[in-house]
Structure formats: C-alpha cells, structure tokens
C-alpha cells in the first residue's frame, strides 16, 4: 500500500513538474524549423528522393541510422548470447495443422514480396528498410511455424553480407562523393522513378535485409529450447 502511494506521488510530481510545463510551453508550430525548411526546399535537388523522411534517414542522418542498426545488432547478439547454444529443439507434439501449413505456404511468398516492395520503394512511398525488414521477419515466422527443422545459416550469411555492404557503400561515398554514406555515388536519375535517388534504394534494401535477418535471428534464438 505504502509503495503504491509513493509511486502515485512520484508520478504526480513528474507530471506536474515536467510533463505539464512541456505540454503548455511547447508551441504549436505554424511553419517549419530552419533545418526542416532546408530539407523541404533543397532535399529534392540535393538527393533526388521524393520521400524526405527516407532522405533524412538514409543520407542526411545516415550515420545515425548506422548507429541504430548497430544497436539492433547488439540487442540481437545479446539475445543470442543469453539464450545460448540449443541443447535440442523441442519436438512438436503434433505437426502443424493442414490449415496452417497451406495458409502459410500460400502467404509466405506474398509476404516476402510485400516486404521487398516496401524497402525497394522506400525513397518513393511511405515505408523503407526498417518496415520492410519487419514484414519479411513476420513472413519467416510463418515458415518457422510450419517447418521444424530449418537452417539458420543462410540468414546469418545474409545478415553479415548486408551489414558489410552497407558500410562499404557508405565508405565509397567518401571516395566518390561528398562524404560517408553520401548517396550520390550513383547518378540521381529521373526524380520519382524507382531507379533514382542515387544509392538510396540500394542502401535501404541492405538495411531492410539487415533488419529482417536480425529479427529472424531473435526469433531463432527464442525458439524451442529445452
């Protein structure tokens, strides 16, 4: 009881001293901040990507995104380390039902295709590597539900491959263009088409593969252990 009262006091203090002033004093914007204004007016000319959020995530703040992918990798590595080596997979009491098997085999290619679509079109439409990667991981979850003996090695390979090439393309930017992770190592192309915006579709696809395979790694580590 005393703990609950203390918690309530702490939360009320936090709300009154920090949240309420923030809520009252944060102005309702009516125009863009100078930085956002620069992105809005110059972003299309600079990078050739119609989706400005993607331009910021992949190029303007590309280093930030590399850091985020690293955090994701460390979290996955931590999960893999904690779950440890599998003694043996839990043998299922019965095979997956026919409904699940057929439904999953039917949906799996469509889900993977949808994920690939989302990260290939990250520079044109809402979406991108992070969202596409999560969609792909959900497709692989289906595969894990129906197929019990299933090798993880191909995903480990894809994960290292995409991470390596992401950094390599970033480093190429230092040599061929303005700096690390600059997308102008490839021609900018026609504004608004799929093969445009320089290296953005390439980098975002690699991020998508990386995020997808890392989440599959989490699923794999958490799956059936004695």
């Amino acid at each position, binding site marked *: 009881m005393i703990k609950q009262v203390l918690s309530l006091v702490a939360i009320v203090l936090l*709300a009154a001293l920090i949240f309420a002033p923030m809520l009252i004093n944060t102005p309702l914007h009516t125009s863009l901040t100078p930085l*956002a*204004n620069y992105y809005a007016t110059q972003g299309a000319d600079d990078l050739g990507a119609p989706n*400005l959020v993607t331009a910021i995530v992949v190029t303007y703040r590309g280093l930030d995104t590399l850091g985020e992918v690293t955090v994701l990798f460390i*979290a996955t590595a931590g*999960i893999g380390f904690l779950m440890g080596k599998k003694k043996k997979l839990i043998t299922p009491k019965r095979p997956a039902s026919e409904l699940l098997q057929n439904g999953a085999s039917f949906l799996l290619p469509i889900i993977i295709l949808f994920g690939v679509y989302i990260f290939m079109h990250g520079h044109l439409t809402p979406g991108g590597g992070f969202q596409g*990667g999560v969609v792909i991981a959900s497709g692989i979850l289906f595969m894990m539900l129906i197929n019990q003996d299933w090798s993880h090695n191909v995903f480990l390979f894809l994960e290292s491959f995409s991470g390596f090439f992401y950094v390599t393309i970033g480093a190429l930017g230092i040599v061929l263009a303005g700096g690390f992770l600059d997308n102008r190592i490839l021609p900018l192309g026609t504004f608004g088409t799929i093969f445009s915006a320089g290296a953005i579709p390439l980098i975002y696809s690699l991020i998508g593969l990386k995020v997808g395979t890392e989440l599959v790694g989490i699923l794999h580590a958490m799956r059936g252990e004695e």
Partner: protein
Amino acid sequence: MNLVMTLGFLLVIIGLWAMLTQKNLIKIIIGFSIIDTGVHLIIVSIGYIKGRTAPILDASVSVADAANKIVDPIPSALVLTAIVIGLAVTALMLTFVIKLYQKNKSLSIDDYQELKW
C-alpha cells in the same frame, strides 16, 4: 494544447505506473512498451503542423511548394528507427526474464532481492 502530445504523456504515465506498481516481470516489460509508444507519440506530435500533409513530394506536393505543405520530417525519421529499436530492446528484456525464470522459477520481482538496497 496539443491533443496527441497529451495522449502521449498519458501513455507515459500509465506505463510508468505499471512499471512502479506491478510485481510481475512481464507486466513491467509491458509497462516499458507503453512508455515507448507514448514517447513516440510525443516526438511525432512535436513535428506536426496543423493542416499539412506527409513529407513526400509527389503530384499533390510540388517541390517548389513543399515548404508550405509538409509537416516536419525530422521527428518522423527519428521515430521510424526508434520503433524497431524498441522492439529489439523489448525482446532483449524478455530474454532476461526467460533466463531468470529458468534459474529461479519465479516471475515475481519480490524474489529478486540481489540489487535491492
């Protein structure tokens, strides 16, 4: 007053209440996830400008007119990555809980006194 930001703070408060009062480790993690969602809402609401559209340049938002028609793209970009990181961190916490349960066969925070002072 900003409605979305108010809701975001409300979610943070609900999540914090769950983290402070619940005894079950999994419920504490659910509280953390609720805080996570609330923080995302707050960040997005900072960049919102009334009556404007998503920062994607297409037929309806021309390049020349973009500065007057789009919301701030920076908070959206930050939240986009934060959502995936939140997912991975939640998975890491759940892994800790699995390991703690395997070792001590208890999900109650009262049974883990080692870090208490």
